[in-house]
């Protein structure tokens, strides 16, 4: 009988992440973002050839000077995962958490098909307009609806579902009803430690857990019609092969879509704000990866300087962008030292209006707008625009503020 080799499918893999309670103590992962192609783990060594005078012309020895672990996670993050990744990238204490403005219960049972619900309290729902609430969060009957505010009555309060909507699920009296939790995250001086676990074929292959990891770079990007995607480059201190796999748990919410985004570019929601085909917001934490003392691996990792770059691909509607970047303003006609400045606010709101992520870059300096090359293909001119965020000489306390509304009811 012929002996066959044992091949392992290359999609037999997972990436898990856990936030450590302290440096030096790894933790089993609790977040398992669904990885996309391009994700990896890399074990690198720095080695040294030792040429010794032993009378020959042969290399006599190679020694290992250092071993490192790093990797990349490419993912279309779900709303709760997105907050986790943002908090890891922005740093320790970055999450200014606000509990749901409204947190109440159903005053009476509700049946599927109802166009209103009865609430025991109206706290957080008293302004005129609408509010999106989640009913039975975490349960099988979890449902997100938008209600018209303020609700009527003096308690219990009757809230009508907006836009003629009706309940899709039945809910018991006493069911939790609350608005989204809000996480406002800005860059901090250093980051928490995380454990990254990467399974390559499970126990048949190898399961690697890297401890004391920090985020080196995070790139948020999307293009027309696609998914909001994150590329997370991380680096760790030490690695251990795990004797057993982790139980993969997945967030059930949908990812964000590019079509859910609303742009405010340089304070305007028109003009180029409507002509963006793709974008990326890249934050680099510039980890200090040189701290090696008595051991083979690094002794720790710390955040270095933070930089934030924004790239936009626009359908060219005028020459203004080129003039702004090189001629001092939209009406400029010749070389000028002044750099064009602006800002970006980008808001993605899922169809349920509950899960929202907002990127706010208040001080951008445009550094490059490449004049497009003409082509005889009959297609539109495109402009590749590059800009960097600054603190505006200290006026701003952050380069990027990310605000996430989701169902994680505590700070990351």
């Amino acid at each position, binding site marked *: 009988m012929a002996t066959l080799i044992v091949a392992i499918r290359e999609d037999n893999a*997972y990436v898990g992440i*856990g*936030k*450590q*309670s302290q440096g*030096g*103590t*790894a*933790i*089993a*992962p*609790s977040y*398992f973002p669904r990885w996309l192609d391009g994700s990896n783990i890399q074990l690198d060594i720095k080695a040294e050839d030792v040429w010794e005078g032993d009378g020959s012309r042969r290399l006599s020895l190679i020694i290992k000077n250092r*071993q490192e672990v790093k990797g990349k996670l490419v993912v279309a993050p779900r709303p*709760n995962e997105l907050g986790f990744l943002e908090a890891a990238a922005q740093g320790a204490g970055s999450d200014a958490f606000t509990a749901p403005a409204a947190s109440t219960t159903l005053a009476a049972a509700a049946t599927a098909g109802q166009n209103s619900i009865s609430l025991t309290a109206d706290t957080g729902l008293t302004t005129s307009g609408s509010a999106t609430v989640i009913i039975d*969060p*975490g*349960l*099988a009957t*979890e449902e997100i609806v938008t209600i018209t505010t303020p609700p009527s009555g003096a308690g219990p309060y009757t809230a009508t579902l907006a836009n003629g909507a009706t309940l899709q699920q039945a809910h018991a009296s006493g069911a939790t009803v609350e608005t989204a939790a809000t996480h406002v995250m800005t860059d901090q001086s250093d980051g928490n430690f995380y*454990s990254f676990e990467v399974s390559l074929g499970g126990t048949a292959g190898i399961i690697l*857990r890297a*401890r004391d990891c920090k985020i080196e770079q995070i790139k948020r990007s999307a293009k027309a019609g696609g998914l909001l995607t994150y590329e997370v480059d991380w680096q760790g201190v*030490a690695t*251990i092969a*795990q*004797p*057993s*796999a*982790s*139980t*993969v*748990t*997945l*967030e*059930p*919410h949908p990812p964000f879509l590019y079509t859910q985004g609303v742009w405010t570019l340089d304070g305007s929601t028109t003009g180029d704000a409507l002509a963006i085909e793709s974008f990326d917001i890249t934050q680099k934490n510039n980890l200090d990866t040189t701290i090696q003392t*008595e*051991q*083979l*691996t690094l002794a720790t990792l710390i955040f270095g300087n933070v930089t934030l770059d924004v790239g936009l691909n626009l359908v060219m509607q005028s020459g203004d962008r080129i003039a702004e970047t090189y001629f001092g303003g939209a009406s400029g006609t010749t070389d000028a030292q002044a750099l064009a400045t602006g800002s970006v606010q980008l808001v993605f709101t899922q169809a349920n209006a509950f899960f929202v992520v907002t990127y706010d870059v208040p001080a951008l300096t445009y550094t490059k707008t490449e004049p497009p090359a003409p082509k005889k293909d009959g297609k539109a001119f495109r402009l590749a625009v590059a800009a960097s965020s600054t603190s505006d000489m200290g006026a701003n306390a952050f380069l990027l503020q990310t605000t996430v509304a989701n*169902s*994680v*009811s*505590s700070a990351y």
Partner: protein
Amino acid sequence: MSTPRLTPDQRVPARYTGSYAVRLAHRDINGAIKDETGALRNNTKVRPGDIVHLRAHEVYGASYLFDPRGERDPQFLGVGKVVLPEHAQLSDAERAALGYEHHEGRSDFEPVYPLEDATRRFAAAAEPVSAAPADSVKPDVSVKTGKGSRAATTESTAQDGSASHEE
């Protein structure tokens, strides 16, 4: 007689404490999701407060002993916070310098039973120490609970007198 010990793969009950429901990956569970009674579930969704059976190392963490010089292979000491008897009197910092590494269990699950109880209940049905890989578990070790220590007692639970479980 060797002390029964949990193997990292032994399934033990754990309560989900996350703030939102998650879904267990099908391929990971292979249709064998057990609830608190040990009965099979037919739903992969895990809601806050649900009890499911996870691998012991995910619930209680695990301990390793590394060679700080990186010359010898690391030793897997076992599930929970495990310390060799000869190092029992050392501080955490001193143990860390020797290469001890204690991994914590998942932050979104909590153990239903303290480690000692789980060992009594589930290790008997699992592989005894003597059947574990030769380099994976050292006999005669003292055991400190990890996450499960909140409800743990300080009584000795060793059956052969060689190991003790501490708060």
